[in-house]
């Protein structure tokens, strides 16, 4: 039987934990709202960018001189996975689910005799994948800071990717992130960045009309494609940001509830123990008096 003092200390410590988790839940909820707003605000640009690239891609697709960013290197030997995770933990299965999906993907690709390289964003992903795949890391970066993802960061990453691509470090590149559905569900998503992949169902009917380009297709494409990669990465960041806060909110909600249950249980034990002690003392007094 634990002592009363031990139980009292235990109850107080669980209460303190509960306060922290419920505060974290509320913080996550308000951050989630901001992240969602940010994601929604960025959607028009991504959509229109996608529409532009798709419409050019349709006109240029048959062209043999199309840039390799659009066409690919005609091989798919080396895959680069850009893995977006978070810097902080305590967000339920958020990072674990990405890592699990990546692990499955890597073994799938390696079974096909492909080489896999990893570009990791976020401290958690780095820590969890380092032991197994540390030798395949191309680069690691910290995730977006507390101010939320910035477009400039995404562009910097896109720039690095293109430099790597130009130096023939990889043939195919995709980004892995958690797509935000609701606060409760996030779906691990693989989005191909290089070569450009049209999103399914996004075929645009141009009615046979042909765009005029100024200066010309190639010059625009040369600028548009890198920009598009930046936008896609930014999109992944925003989705990830909202997902992370959603996952954290749910995790902290559960933790707060569990702490509540635990406090109830401990309080019950505490009261029982206290009563048992009182009873015991009474019995001792009574039997002591009877013995006289």
């Amino acid at each position, binding site marked *: 039987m634990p002592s009363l003092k031990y139980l009292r200390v235990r109850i107080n410590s669980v209460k303190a934990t509960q306060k922290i988790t419920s505060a974290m839940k509320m913080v996550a909820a308000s951050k989630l709202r901001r992240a969602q707003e940010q994601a929604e605000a960025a959607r028009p640009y991504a959509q229109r960018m996608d529409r532009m690239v798709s419409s050019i891609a349709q006109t240029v697709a048959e062209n043999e001189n199309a840039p390799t960013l659009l066409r690919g290197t005609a091989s798919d030997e080396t895959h680069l996975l850009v893995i977006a995770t978070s810097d902080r933990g305590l967000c339920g299965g958020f990072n674990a689910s990405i890592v699990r999906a990546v692990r499955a993907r890597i073994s799938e690709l390696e079974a096909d005799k492909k080489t896999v390289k990893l570009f990791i964003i976020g401290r958690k992903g780095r820590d969890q994948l380092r032991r197994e795949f540390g030798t395949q890391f191309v680069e690691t970066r910290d995730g977006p800071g507390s101010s939320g993802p910035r477009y400039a960061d995404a562009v910097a990453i896109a720039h690095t990717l293109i430099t790597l691509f130009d130096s023939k470090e990889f043939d195919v590149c995709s980004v892995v992130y958690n797509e935000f559905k609701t606060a409760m569900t996030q779906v691990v998503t693989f989005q191909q960045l290089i070569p450009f992949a049209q999103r399914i169902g996004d075929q645009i009917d141009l009615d046979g009309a042909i765009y005029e380009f*100024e200066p010309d297709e190639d010059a*625009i494409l040369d600028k548009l494609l890198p920009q598009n990669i930046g936008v896609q990465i930014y999109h992944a960041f925003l989705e990830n940001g909202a997902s992370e806060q959603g996952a954290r909110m749910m995790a902290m909600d559960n933790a707060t509830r569990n702490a509540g249950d635990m406090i109830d249980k401990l309080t019950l034990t505490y009261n029982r123990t206290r009563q048992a002690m009182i009873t015991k003392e009474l019995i001792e007094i009574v039997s002591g008096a009877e013995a006289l």
Partner: protein
Amino acid sequence: MADKVEFELVSPERLLVSEGADMVVVPGEEGDFGVLPGHALFLSGVRPGTIEVYNGETISDRIFVAGGFAEVTGERCTVLAEEAVNLAEVERVSVEARISDNEQAISVANPDEDVTEYENDLRIGRALLEALDAQ
């Protein structure tokens, strides 16, 4: 045919402007071009400069863009801008500060340091100042 063009200006962070206009003049890579309703399908790069939105005979808005792309269809003119500010809200002092900051950054940079970022920003700053002066 619609008698107005749907003008949309979007930055990576958000949708900035979405309104009807009689004519939009965009600083294209190979010179300014005006967009009227019923324009042919057209895609162009955008250089740093001022977008002028006409309603009636007068310019209702002047917006500075730091470059990007413009897509024109019969009904729409969409500009994807990397950075955009309404010229009415720009303060000259901050633009001048931006230019001198960048000039300083370039002058103190090591020879092997990559200064393209500063140079780009400097170019944008100068174009912005020019746009302010032209107003």
